[in-house]
């Protein structure tokens, strides 16, 4: 086996065998699944237990307005003094008591909810919603307006956004989905560059502090060692990425099957709640399937996946060589701060500006950020879901690849000299001279 292959193999195996790798690999999907599963579990559990709310309404406005729902039952206690109802709450007969004092239209209502336990957010929202609506209706009536007219006037506007190209093809776009996709993709690239670039740097520092570096480079060229390490770590990153996707998929399917078996009816309702939240809150459920298909068709997943892989790999490679060079300059992790700053700054700029780009994907600044090689892997990924002219993507990739080659040359020069320097305070001026060493 050739030497660079041996190095890649060692770098890969020592990392994937580490306990921390295994933990992170399994914890990641569990966390992701938890984000999906916990709300559903909560929704399913909450429906089993109905809140009993005693209502003492001295204004008598709302007595027939509170309707029982899946979560709560309202029990009217007309004429009962609130203090005795509070006693009943204390004894556990009711979960909570709602007290509405005599109300006048122009004075804000001072309703109170008494409860032993924390009042669930949804109960609070429901009660205040009902009361608000009733008071509004009363006010309208007082002004001589029929509330029926008001509700008849209410309209929902569903704005359809069509993007056209030069040939006149029209395509519907879904900004919310593109927004989410752009942020998630750029976050992923940012995270992987930081985490695995950092691993490359720590690997170099480890070889330096263990003093094994000179032993190794008497067998292989420093460049081979550096590239072997970078490629080895990139394979670790890809392994983790693929495992995450697979495990998340397995957990998702497994959980859905479990829910489907134990709660055959609820899954439908909570499932639609989920999809409604993802797509748009106002779309009726029978239109759901149709709109998902439309969204799926509107997004060019092929381009996104290819671009993600290209920008992910090139971006990682560019930063990994820089991290390797920095690792070679320092003797321990604490010293690395002063040298990592110049490379974390462009990453930070890119990730912070991604919130601007996602709102203005085609502005001048966005285009520039997605061309500059140090920010382009992140900034371009934000723009891709919105559709980017092919020449811009190609130009960005060419610039990024070119910078990678140039930076590898520079980093290799720094690395070669740096790994053999011990206990010396270095200045940028001195490092610059290393580029000229034979």
């Amino acid at each position: 086996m050739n030497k660079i292959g041996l190095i890649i193999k060692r770098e890969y195996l020592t990392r994937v065998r580490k306990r921390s790798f295994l933990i992170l690999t399994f914890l990641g999907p569990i966390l992701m699944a938890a984000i999906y599963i916990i709300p559903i579990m909560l929704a399913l559990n909450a429906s089993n237990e109905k809140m009993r709310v005693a209502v003492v309404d001295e204004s008598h406005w709302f007595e027939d307005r509170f309707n029982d729902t899946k979560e709560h039952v309202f029990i009217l206690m007309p004429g009962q003094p609130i203090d005795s109802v509070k006693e009943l709450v204390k004894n556990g007969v009711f979960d909570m008591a709602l007290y509405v004092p005599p109300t006048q239209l122009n004075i804000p209502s001072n309703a109170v909810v008494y409860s032993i336990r924390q009042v669930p957010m949804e109960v609070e929202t429901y009660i205040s919603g009902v009361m608000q609506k009733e008071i509004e209706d009363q006010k309208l009536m007082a002004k001589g307006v029929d509330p029926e007219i008001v509700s008849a006037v209410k309209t929902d506007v569903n704005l359809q956004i069509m993007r056209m190209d030069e040939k006149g093809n029209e395509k519907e776009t879904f900004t919310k989905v593109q927004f989410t996709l752009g942020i998630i993709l750029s976050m992923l690239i940012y995270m992987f560059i930081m985490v695995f670039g950092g691993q490359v740097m720590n690997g170099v520092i480890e070889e330096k502090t263990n003093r094994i570096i000179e032993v190794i480079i008497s067998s292989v060229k420093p460049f081979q060692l550096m590239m072997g390490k970078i490629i080895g770590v990139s394979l670790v990153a890809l392994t983790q990425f693929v495992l995450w996707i697979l495990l998340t998929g397995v957990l998702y399917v497994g959980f859905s099957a479990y829910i489907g078996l134990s709660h055959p009816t609820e899954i439908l309702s909570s499932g639609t709640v989920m999809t409604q939240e993802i797509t748009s809150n106002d779309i009726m459920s029978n239109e759901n399937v149709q709109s998902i298909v439309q969204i799926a068709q509107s997004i060019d997943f092929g381009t996104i996946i290819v671009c993600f892989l290209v920008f992910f790999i090139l971006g990682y490679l560019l930063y990994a060589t820089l991290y390797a060079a920095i690792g070679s300059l320092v003797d321990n992790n604490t010293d690395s701060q002063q040298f990592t700053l110049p490379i974390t700054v462009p990453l930070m700029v890119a990730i912070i500006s991604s919130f601007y780009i996602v709102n203005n994907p085609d502005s001048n600044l966005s285009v520039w950020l997605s061309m500059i090689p140090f920010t382009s892997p992140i900034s371009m990924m934000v723009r891709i879901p919105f559709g980017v002219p092919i020449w811009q993507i190609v130009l960005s990739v060419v610039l990024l690849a070119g910078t990678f080659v140039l930076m590898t040359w520079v980093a290799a020069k720094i690395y070669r000299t740096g790994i053999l320097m011990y206990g010396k305070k270095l200045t940028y001026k001195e490092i610059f001279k290393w580029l000229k060493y034979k």
Partner: protein
Amino acid sequence: MTKISVNEVTKKYADHLALDRMCIDIPEHCIYGLLGPNGAGKTTLIRILNQITAPDSGQVLIGGEPLCQKHIAHIGYLPEERGLYKKMKVGEQAIYLAELKGIKKVEAQKRLKVWFDKFEISGWWDKKVEELSKGMQQKVQFITTIIHEPDILIFDEPFSGFDPINANLLKEAILDLRDKGATILLSTHNMASVEELCDSITLINNGKSILQGKVSDIKRQHDTHQREIIVRYDDFAKVMAIADTYNNIKVEHTDRPDETKLTLFSESPNELLGQLLQVGQLVSFKEVLPSMNDIFIQEVQSKNQAS
């Protein structure tokens, strides 16, 4: 035959000249000492031989051929700054380092077993390096240096970190490798080991070679013709009476009250010996050659004063 030939090698770093037209010829099958004060340029020269850095000018020949990539497999290098991956297992690591030198895995395993048995460390195969003491790590390190059976070995301060027993084991191993045909370059500040092991040396100072040759020849050249005589006497005054007639003699007391040590700076001690035999008992007589330590200090200091 010359195994390694360093011709007019110059290496310049930003602010200083590490090697200045350095020339060294290292014969085959010998132990060659590379001496010099700190920062003299020894490590730079060694790194050039290992192709870790390239010379600015000049040439290195290995067995008559210009130094190139293929020679890496023929050189075993134990650097002064050495270590192992702490988290890796001993056996796995030894195999990895052997593979990097181009040895097949199966072959590496076989050879390592022999050496691990010889150094009595077979039980460590599955231990992590960080669990071993420093001396144990040095043994593993030494084995990984020679596992590919190179015909050139470069040892930079090999004895540091070894206790006397293991240092001796290492010394035997080095002599054994020489007898089996390896050419060994030894860089060290330990002058005792130079005297014991080295056939020839080069003394480097400020990037230049200031003394070169066989150890025995160098000692001969620096001979101040000292003869050390210890006599046991009955009357110290009689000994002093004889000594006073010479102007090239030094008299010192020993730790015994009835003995004295006379150091004579002359190639003809017979007359003095004859006289001393009449006043006392001769305990010992020996020729004192300068130690490599003395020669090192003397040569480096005189060069530094001259410059």
